[in-house]
């Protein structure tokens, strides 16, 4: 495999050093926010119509925010990798896809639990449900593509192209499913600002908790990936005279 101009193998870059520095603070911040969030969720008022199941509100949309952040980072990291040829962007894209897929899976699990409690059925082909499910499939395929492709540079290129196409298709899916009659039965609470009294705080905290959890997991995942690259470089490097294994 010939290297493209500008392509370089770097075990560590400014981006990765930044994420590594962020690892410990984000862990502590997560612990603090999580405790505050748990208390505020416990003290939040019980919804007069839905009952206690409404408290999924403090988990479900925040998880979705983190999932979308992951998928956006996957496409951005892939595009930067194709543009600059720096492998640390590819490690960012791959890690963001994995962590994003984890959050997206939790969204797709918590959603039906809430839906069964309030709408009366596990799954409806609602606009946002369908788009999220398709996204989940796209990023599952993204990770499969990576593991089925031999050669890390080639896998990175293929995956970057797929990640960008996956992001480009999101608005199209929204439009398409909307047109096909999958009108959203998701409430537009945030747009209308109609969260009940005492519900805004735990919701905002939930969003922070999920974003910080995402960042923390991303830092750790990127670190594993760069350690793996460094190990591979060390194993591949020719040993000089007198070098010890």
């Amino acid at each position, binding site marked *: 495999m010939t290297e493209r101009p500008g392509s370089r193998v770097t075990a560590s870059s400014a981006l990765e050093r930044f994420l590594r520095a962020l690892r410990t603070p984000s862990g502590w911040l997560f612990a603090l926010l999580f405790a505050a969030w748990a208390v505020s969720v416990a003290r939040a008022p019980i919804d007069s119509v839905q009952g206690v199941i409404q408290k999924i509100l403090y988990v479900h949309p925040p998880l979705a925010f983190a999932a979308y952040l992951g998928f956006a980072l996957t496409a951005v990291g892939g595009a930067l990798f194709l543009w600059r040829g720096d492998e640390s962007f590819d490690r960012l894209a791959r890690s963001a896809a994995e962590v994003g897929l984890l959050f997206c899976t939790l969204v797709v699990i918590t959603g039906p639990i809430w839906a069964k409690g309030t709408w009366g059925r596990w799954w409806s082909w609602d606009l946002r449900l369908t788009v999220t499910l398709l996204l989940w499939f796209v990023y599952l395929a993204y990770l499969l593509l990576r593991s089925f*492709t031999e050669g890390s540079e080639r896998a990175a290129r293929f995956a970057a192209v797929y990640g960008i196409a996956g992001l480009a298709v999101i608005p199209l899916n929204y439009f398409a*499913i909307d047109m096909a009659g999958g009108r959203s039965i998701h409430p537009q609470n945030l747009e209308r600002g109609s969260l009940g009294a005492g519900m805004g705080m735990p919701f905002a905290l939930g969003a922070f908790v999920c974003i910080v959890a995402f960042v923390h997991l991303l830092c750790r995942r990127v670190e594993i990936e760069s350690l793996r690259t460094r190990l591979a470089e060390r194993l591949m490097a020719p040993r000089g005279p007198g070098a010890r294994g």
Partner: protein
Amino acid sequence: MNTLAAILWKDLVSEWRSRDRVIAMGLFAFLVVIVLRFALPGTDPVEVKRLAPGLLWVAYVFAALLGLNRAFALELENDALAGLALAPADRGWVFLGKALANFVLLALVQAATATVFGIAFALDLVPIAGRLAAIVALGSLGICTVGTLFSAVAVRTRYREVMLPLLLLPLLMPILLGAVSATTSLLGDGALPFEPLQLLVVTDGIFLIVSFVSFEFVLDE
């Protein structure tokens, strides 16, 4: 431009000499139509008209996947793919040549499948043939652009026959929804609806640009 014509001509000539891809795609599409026909419980004409567009597009997409899987398989022999990658031409035009060849082959299969489909489901497609062809062409354009791009990707992965549908089907959802919706209204009142066609044109445009630009990175050896 010359590159496009050369690649298109090469693919069509080699297909004309063997004819194996078109025959395989066509037979497969016929079988899908027959299976779908037997899987349907009733023959109520109203019910058939409601379901037919979706079923027709299922047959089209399956046939397209089969054909696209082979689009680059031939290029693997004798390292022809490396030759394509080294050709002193813009790779975007190489891509367009391959995509256009796939489009032509798929169109042949689709025309034959529509005939069989019309007979099997007792639908008179002749009066709407022109408008149906326009919808099918818009749909196939989207399928063939991203299809050709990711066929070049899938052919160099393990389990390549499995990989292509996994990559392609989630991306093809806007195309499928637009095409099925347009076909449904065409079968219903014979009119071409604006919204689905708009969706198809926009999706085709985006897919064409994304594939044209990123084919460069897919062919890199």
